């Protein structure tokens, strides 16, 4: 070789090959193994869970899935269906979306962009975080007291109705919507704000044209996940009061008047069926209803991920 290697820091042409050789990294390998092990446990639990549920539900799923989804609540396990539960859960989700999203997003924008940093505002922030940790059954008590029995409000909600349940669930997810929106807004680079203000945008223009579009993927994911959570909550609905036996009238899917009527919901149907002595209800029908509810939640989550990816691709240009 024409170029001589200069010995640097004790390196010589003789030992440089040895010094550059890869050495086994035992600690690193062990750590990697431990992490992989933890991951397999979590996934394993999930797989076992799904397997038991699907195999319990199999008699229903394989023979009468269509009838099960379109059928109504009935005393006969072989004929009972969940259409009223699906309808109820659908309306609950719609009400949550209509009520909690605008309120939560607006509250988050106010807290992040407008509220002066005072002791009062940090007190409010801390308590929003606390509210997110309040057990859902407490929201059920709130819903029962205010939205079902509240003076004047009960006339509006119709008592034990999807409206009362939806408002209760909206209150339940509101803190989560606020927090995730706040976090998405905080993640907006300050350079983008400065760019907007720098060309003479007003505060509102900066929020509307730059901050919200940039934060949209994060806001969207958070809000759709909170809908998924609302769809799966049973405890507050048990208190608000859903029907799990037999509903006399069964309006069509898009008859909006039913938001003030008696209603059923998926999680409460599952809870009630799982308590029945009869095996057709306790095992097969309950498991089948769980499969349908899980499919619904997975659908929502996938939609959240897809939409977020699309927004993010748009943001990156």
């Amino acid at each position: 070789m024409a170029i001589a290697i200069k010995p640097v820091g004790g390196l010589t042409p003789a030992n440089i090959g040895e010094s550059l050789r890869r050495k086994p990294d035992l600690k690193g390998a062990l750590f990697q193994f431990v992490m992989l092990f933890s991951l397999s446990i979590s996934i394993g639990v999930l797989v076992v869970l799904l397997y038991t549920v699907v195999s319990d539900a199999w008699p229903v799923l394989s023979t009468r899935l269509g009838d099960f989804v379109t059928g109504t609540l009935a005393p006969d396990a072989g004929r009972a269906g969940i259409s009223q539960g699906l309808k109820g859960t659908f309306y609950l989700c719609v009400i949550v979306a209509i009520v909690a999203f605008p309120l939560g997003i607006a509250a988050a924008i106010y807290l992040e962009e407008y509220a002066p940093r005072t002791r009062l505002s940090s007190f409010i922030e801390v308590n929003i975080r606390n509210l997110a940790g309040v057990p859902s059954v407490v929201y059920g008590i709130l819903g029962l007291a205010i939205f079902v029995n509240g003076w004047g409000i009960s006339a509006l909600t119709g008592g034990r109705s999807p409206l009362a349940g939806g408002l209760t669930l909206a209150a339940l997810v509101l803190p989560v919507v606020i927090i995730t929106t706040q976090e998405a807004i905080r993640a907006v680079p300050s350079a983008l704000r400065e760019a907007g203000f720098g060309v003479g945008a007003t505060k509102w223009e900066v929020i509307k044209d730059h901050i919200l579009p940039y934060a949209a993927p994060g806001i969207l994911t958070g809000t759709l996940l909170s809908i998924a959570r609302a769809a799966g909550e049973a405890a507050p609905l048990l208190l608000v009061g859903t029907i799990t036996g037999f509903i006399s009238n069964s309006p069509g899917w898009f008859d909006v008047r039913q938001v003030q009527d008696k209603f059923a919901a998926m999680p409460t149907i599952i809870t009630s069926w799982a308590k029945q002595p009869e095996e057709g209800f306790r095992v097969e029908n309950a498991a089948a209803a769980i499969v349908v509810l899980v499919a619904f939640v997975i659908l929502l989550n996938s939609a959240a991920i897809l939409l977020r990816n699309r927004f993010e691709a748009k943001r990156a240009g």
Partner: protein
Amino acid sequence: MTKEQFERNDGKGESMDVLQIARPVAAATSDAEVTDNPTVLALKDLSVFYGDFRAVRGVTVDVRDNEITAMIGPSGCGKSTVLRSINRMNDLIPGARVEGDLKFHGVDLYDAKVDPVEVRRRIGMVFQKPNPFPKSIFDNITYGPKIAGVPKSEFEAIVEKSLRRAALWDEVKDRLDESALGMSGGQQQRLCIARAIATSPDVLLMDEPCSALDPIATGMIEDLMQEIKSRYTIVIVTHNMQQAARVSDRTAFFTAEADSENDRRTGVLVEYDRTERIFSNPADIRTENYVTGRFG
């Protein structure tokens, strides 16, 4: 120049050219030399605070029309702070406030009747790191005019004019619809200059506009500044002394010194003069030490 021009303008149907400031013809201040251009920005004994902390004090600088004024000094001496107080960008930082005088064509920029949004339309800003909007090249440039109420029919002309002035037109004229984020750093910074120009500002503030760029891109931006200074008044912060010497007509040298009020160091203006004097024959020994590289 009247105060009314600063108050929020709904801009309906009014083009930016109408809003552009008429340059005072022979309004040179009495103490100025005969050859001096009229003063655009007059900073007089300006201090800027972040809460109780006085970040910089004693800034007295006359920024003159169609000149490039450089601010140099060690980092932390308040150059960005002063620059950002000129277009009221510091209003965005809670607790930030100024003391002293800051006049733009004779109007007190911190008068209660002055709308900071209008100020920023007339005093544009280019930041240290290129910060294009995550939008197309075209939309980046038209955003400022759009919110100022300029009719859509003028957009194409504005885009071409701004990009030409920013020496970027030939490189991007065929991909105006593409995202600005796909451009190189130097192109992004020139786009940011084009975006600032698009609102027809009177003054351009640049905060270390080349510090994230390679020497070739830096050279292009320096050339571009020389090109456009006949139309705009430019204030540039740089910690590259050669750059200040190359591009500027006047230079303000800042340093940081211990403050009697608290134990943090406060920036202070040491000397402000024509650039050749600052670099060849400064009046203050601290300036001399700094420009000759003997700064301790």
